[in-house]
C-alpha cells in the first residue's frame, strides 16, 4: 500500500515537534558564544603537537629510507665487500637471485644489463633524495565513526654506481609515495 503509506508519512511530517526548552538555548549561548576555554586551547595544542609529531616521525622514516634500501641492495646484488660505497656485483649471482618480490623489482632491467658484464667493481657515485612533498587531503570518516585526515608524502630517490674501469653506470630511480592518517579530534 505505498500510496496509503505516503498519506501516513505526509501526516507525520505535518506534526510539529515541540521546541527545546529555553534553558537549552541559554546553555548553548553560554558555551558557544563564550571565548574558547583553556581546555579548548589544551585540545588544540595537543592536536597540533600530535600532528607535528606524526609529521616529524614520517620525515624521519623517510630519511632512513635510502639507508635501508642500500642495506637491502647489498645482499640482493651479491656484494662482496660490506664497505660502502664499493659494491662488487657478480653478474652470475644476479640471475640466480632474481628477486621479483623485492622492493628492487623495478630495477630488474638495470640488473639484466649488469648481468651481461662478466665482473665489475661498482662504486656509489651519487645518492640523492628529493625533498618530501606533503599533501593534506580532505578528512574522511572511518567505519567506527571517527575522522582522520590523510596526508600523502611523496619523494624520489636516485642512486648511481659506476665501474671505474668500464665507466658503466647503474642508475636506480625510486619514486616513493606513502599515506599517513592523522586522527582528528571531534569529541
Amino acid at each position, binding site marked *: *500500500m505505498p500510496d*496509503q*503509506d505516503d498519506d*501516513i*508519512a505526509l*501526516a*507525520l*511530517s*505535518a*506534526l*510539529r*515537534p*515541540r*521546541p*527545546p*526548552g529555553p*534553558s*537549552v*538555548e541559554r*546553555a*548553548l*549561548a553560554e*558555551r*558557544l558564544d563564550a571565548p574558547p576555554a583553556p581546555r579548548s586551547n589544551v585540545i588544540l595544542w595537543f592536536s597540533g603537537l600530535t600532528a607535528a609529531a606524526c609529521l616529524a616521525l614520517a620525515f624521519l622514516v623517510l630519511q632512513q629510507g635510502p639507508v635501508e634500501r642500500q642495506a637491502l641492495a647489498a645482499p640482493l646484488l651479491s656484494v662482496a665487500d660490506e664497505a660502502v660505497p664499493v659494491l662488487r656485483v657478480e653478474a652470475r649471482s644476479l640471475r640466480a637471485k632474481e628477486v621479483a618480490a623485492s622492493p628492487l623489482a623495478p630495477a630488474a632491467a638495470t640488473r639484466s644489463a649488469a648481468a651481461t658484464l662478466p665482473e665489475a667493481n661498482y662504486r656509489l657515485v651519487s645518492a640523492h633524495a628529493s625533498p618530501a612533498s606533503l599533501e593534506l587531503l*580532505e*578528512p*574522511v*570518516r572511518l567505519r567506527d*565513526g571517527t*575522522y582522520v585526515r590523510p596526508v600523502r608524502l611523496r619523494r624520489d630517490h636516485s642512486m648511481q654506481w659506476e665501474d671505474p674501469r668500464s665507466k658503466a653506470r647503474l642508475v636506480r630511480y625510486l619514486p616513493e609515495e606513502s599515506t599517513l592518517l592523522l586522527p582528528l*579530534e*571531534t*569529541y
Partner: protein
Amino acid sequence: MAEMSDAPVSADWRAWFADHGPRLRMIARQWTRSEADADDVLQEAFIRFWKHQRHLPGDPNALVVTSIRRAALDLIRSSDRRAVREKAVAADTETVGWFEPEADPRLRALAESLGRLPAEQREVVALKTWGGLTFDQIGEQLTISSNTAASRWRYAMESLRRLITARTHA
C-alpha cells in the same frame, strides 16, 4: 521540514538551531527517558556538532543524528541505565506531548498512536520523518541492514494506519 545543507557554512548557530532544534529534540527523545534528558542530550550533541563536526565532509544530517545518538548512549551509560535502554524508554512515553497541540483530530490521533509503536519501529519513523535520513543511513545509525530499517518502516505505517482508524471510529 527545513533542509540542513546550510549547516556547514552558516555561522549563526541561533538561526540554525531555531530551524532544526525541534526536530532534533524529537530524535533525541527517542533515546532518552524524559524531556529533561532529551534537552541535555540535544545540548551536548549540538555543541559537539557545531564546534567540531559541521565543517566535516558528508551529510550534516547524518552527522548531527550520530552526535545525538552518541550523547544519548553516553547519558545512559553515565546513569547506569544500560539494562533498560531503548525498549524501556519507549514503554512509559506519552508521545502526544512531543508535539505542538493539533486541531485536526487525525493528527492528534497520529501523535497519540506513535506512542503505541514498538520502540524500534518508532525510532525508524523518527529518523526518517524528522531526521531526514535514508534507509541506508538509518541502518548505519542503528547498526541494522537497510532492509530491516525499511521493514520496520512498513510495519510502523501499517500499525499507525490501524491505530488511527480504530481511534477515529471509536
